[in-house]
């Protein structure tokens, strides 16, 4: 990996419910303590790509989080959440056209095209090198999808010549690299291509976010099943540029309000049929 | 060509080809005094053209052409452009399909033959083209060899020996390994003649062999043809505008105009005392 500034001391904290505590590059601000967001001034100063509009960018094939429905409308859990956030901020919400998942972080890091990426994106240390994240808004896990009844496990999959698909740049991608070192990791642009490949036997399995796996299997891939749930306990956050700390604070504020006033539960209920997510 | 057939103008009715012996005796009578070539009673013409008609779409370019050519005879066909002389020549080796009439080579009707039979026929009828049509990817020697090896199935050494012999005969022994692009037009045409002769055809057709050449290159080609005519005993039908060549070399001169054989006869007769005013007019305009 690239040269990371080593710090000689730093006793670090792992705080559940917050982002990783210490940034990796000296230039980056450490994440705020989750509990301090209330102190952010009401008139947050932030910049937007387009005035009055909260511009989102995401990979729009990630049901139930963000996808394009039969009518061509972008819908999903993240969409409702982002609308709620925009409403709290007195903004309207717009989505850029579909973009490959692995381009989202660079897009936000570069700035100028989108303000935020709310895309079922797990807060993790590599991404934190490039972009900042809001407070986590949802917990998630990974799942291994394979043909129903195939009996595949993470042990059988970890073998030479076995192709395991994932979506490029996702946590599933790095999970395969770290945990299935003998298998061949096949990163793909979209989830459907991977599921289709597993269904036709092109790939042995796919590792993706569990809610997405369950949704895909229920909606269109009845011949597949989640053969193994991987309890990663990862957390989705909203990617924001480090150059726009005001926006991150404003979003955290809005998130807190949404949690408090029950909007979050409504959205969860709508998309997952339960608030226990 | 089948596509064209469908839009063919009205079918031209011609009588069936004459029986060989009858045709031969008629030809023997008819051609007396028309050629300086010596032919004998009972001998059969090598090429017999009876009532040959050819039309392109609605234009009739050959109208009831009749002609006999005797073995070893050198016939020169003259006529203005568009008179149908090249078309007649191309009909003889079926590069054009006659619309009606008969062409017989050694008393063998060549029209309405299968593709395989046509190929067999063509190896016996050599052709030298106005544009040479050498194969540019092959050397001079290979151009002369390819017909022998592919069609006559000669072995390579034999074909090569023949090729070198024929190239020497046209004065190009030292150009055997040159590609056509490295040769002058005149040299190319001489290679083309060697290529045709190497197949030892019964009849050799020349379709305006010097028309595409610069004037100073014409003579070399004509010399080769003259040599062939005088020393090989090959039957030659030559379409050309070279009056000198016709006068010196031809056994018979045929004058065509507008798809019709207007006049034929001994060269000195046709050139010096043309019977037909059209012939006189044409020769006058050339000379």
């Amino acid at each position, binding site marked *: 990996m690239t040269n990371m500034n080593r710090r000689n001391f730093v006793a670090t904290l*792992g705080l*559940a419910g917050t982002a990783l505590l210490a940034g990796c590059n000296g230039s980056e601000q450490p994440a705020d303590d989750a509990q301090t967001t209330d102190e952010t001034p009401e008139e947050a100063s932030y910049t937007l790509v387009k005035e009055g509009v909260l511009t989102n960018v995401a990979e729009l094939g990630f049901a139930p989080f963000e996808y394009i429905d039969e009518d061509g409308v972008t819908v999903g859990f993240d969409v409702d959440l982002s609308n709620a956030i925009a409403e709290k901020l007195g903004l309207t919400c717009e989505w850029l056209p579909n973009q490959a998942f692995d381009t989202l972080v660079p897009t936000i890091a570069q700035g100028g095209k989108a303000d935020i990426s709310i895309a079922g994106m797990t807060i993790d240390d590599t991404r934190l090198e490039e972009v900042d994240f809001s407070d986590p808004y949802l917990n998630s896990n990974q799942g291994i999808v394979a043909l129903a009844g195939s009996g595949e496990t993470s042990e059988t999959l970890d073998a030479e010549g076995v192709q395991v698909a994932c979506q490029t740049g996702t946590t599933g991608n790095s999970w395969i690299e770290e945990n299935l070192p003998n298998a061949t990791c096949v990163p793909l642009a979209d989830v459907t291509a991977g599921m289709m490949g597993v269904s036709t036997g*092109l790939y042995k399995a796919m590792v993706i976010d569990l809610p997405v796996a369950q949704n895909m299997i229920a909606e269109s891939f009845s011949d597949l099943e989640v053969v193994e749930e991987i309890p990663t306990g990862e957390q989705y956050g909203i990617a924001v540029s480090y150059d726009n700390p005001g926006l991150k604070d404003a979003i955290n504020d809005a998130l807190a309000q949404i949690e408090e006033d029950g909007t979050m539960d409504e959205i969860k209920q709508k998309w997952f049929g339960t608030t226990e997510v | 060509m089948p596509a064209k057939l469908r839009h063919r103008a009205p079918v031209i009715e011609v009588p069936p080809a004459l029986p060989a012996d009858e045709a031969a005796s008629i030809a023997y009578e008819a051609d007396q005094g028309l050629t300086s070539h010596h032919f004998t009673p009972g001998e059969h013409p090598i090429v017999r053209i009876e009532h040959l008609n050819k039309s392109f779409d609605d234009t009739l370019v050959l109208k009831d052409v009749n002609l006999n050519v005797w073995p070893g005879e050198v016939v020169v066909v003259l006529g203005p452009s568009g008179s149908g002389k090249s078309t007649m020549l191309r009909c003889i080796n079926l590069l054009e399909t006659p619309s009606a009439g008969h062409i017989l080579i050694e008393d063998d009707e060549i029209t309405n033959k299968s*593709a395989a039979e046509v190929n067999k026929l063509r190896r016996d009828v*050599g052709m030298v083209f106005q544009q040479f049509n050498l194969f540019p*990817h092959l050397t001079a020697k290979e151009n002369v060899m390819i*017909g022998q090896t592919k069609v006559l199935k000669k072995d390579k050494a034999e074909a090569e020996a023949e090729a070198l012999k024929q190239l020497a005969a046209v004065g190009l022994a030292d150009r055997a390994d040159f590609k056509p692009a490295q040769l002058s037009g005149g040299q190319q045409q001489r290679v083309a003649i060697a290529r045709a002769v190497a*197949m030892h055809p019964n009849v050799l057709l020349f379709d305006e062999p010097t028309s595409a050449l610069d004037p100073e*290159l014409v003579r070399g080609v004509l010399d080769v043809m003259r040599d062939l005519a005088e020393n090989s005993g090959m039957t030659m039908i030559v379409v050309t505008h070279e009056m000198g060549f016709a006068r010196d070399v031809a056994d018979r001169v045929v004058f065509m105009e507008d798809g019709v054989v207007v006049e034929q006869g001994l060269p000195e007769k046709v050139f010096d005392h043309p019977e037909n005013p059209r012939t006189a007019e044409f020769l006058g305009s050339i000379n």
Partner: protein
Amino acid sequence: MQHRRGALLVALALALTGVFATTLAAPRPAQALTTEKATARPNEDGGDGVIGGMDTRLTWEGTVEPGEEVTSVTLTLPEGSTFDGSTTRITALEGLKRMDVTGEAVPAGSSITVNFDQAIPEGSLLRLEITNMQFPSEGGECVVSGSYVSAGAEHELADSKPIETIANTPLQSIVNWLDDQPWVEAWNSNQFLGMFLKPQLLVTSFSSLAPGWILCLGIVVAAYPFAIALGLLFAMLKISKWRILRAIAVVYINVLRGTPLFLQIYIMFFGLPMLNINIDNNLLGIIVMAINSSAYLAEIFRAGIQSIPQGQYEAASSLGMNYVQTMFTIILPQTVRRVIPTVTSDFITAFKDTSLLSSVGVMELMMFSKNLTTVTGNITPYVAAGIFYLIVTLPLIKVVGIVEENIARSERGSGPRPKRRADVADSAAAQMKEATDAC
């Protein structure tokens, strides 16, 4: 597997404890925290090795056994490892449900102690992800041992399965050396240069993309002879006398040329398995590329064949050659020379188009770059891939130029000479010779 075993154990144990809590507790060894697994994130640039002496991330997982609680965990690695400067993320899960757990990590050389603010309850899966730690620089098998505190007493932690680590590779040394160069830092501080032309990544990309590059070349080189044969076949069909054969050729050529290669790849890779036809990925890649190129080549060949003057057919016919002989000895050899430039261009296109195979898991150049870009979040690997493509395409483009030049020259010099003396100079020598011959 470890997860599942852990989950099963937990479930089983939980179920049993209700009934046999005391009986089971008694014979159990004093193991309140079972080590599930320990893995390290690969930190070899462009590779999948875990290199010692370089920052990486250790992930350790353990299950808190029933009836137990854990308040502190100490992980120890072999001598030479260091946790100094690391950051630790704590995750605790009950099943798939995340619990709120906080704590403090205290690195101390090759050990790290994590004290939890709240005891980790029974049945939890505890995960510690320690970022920016280092394994011993000499590499080797690293076992994670350590201890934990449960109910105020310290216990030994069972050893993990060893983590394979390697010593620094020469390539990595170059990268590390580059890391320390001021000019590299200056270079990378330019946003564009750092994003597209990061020297460290260029170095690693070249070594790690090479297999993908070889595969690309292999696929297209293996596919092309078939493409040529198929293309020739369909070119012949297209100029055939028979309408049905022409129709077949037209449909084949137009459908393949008229649809994106991407679609054709999808149909072959996903469609064939659905018909229970299972072919190796690379072989299938070769087949798709061959079929796709054959359609383009068919058109190139057809145009090439039809560009051969009619006189060539007539000359061949007048020698008595049949159609097949004419085609194979006269027409096609000339066609080949004429189409070499276009065919080479098509080869270049086909070579670049192999990149689309990355969408279906063929491990070609783009796939490797994508992997690397994913890991690094940097575009440089794609640029390196571009350079790899250029290594093949630039010489070929040069070849096309030379061949085109040659053909132009040979066509200028060959064929019927126009009567008007346009290019006398060109053939002056030949004509002089001719004139001398004639006299």
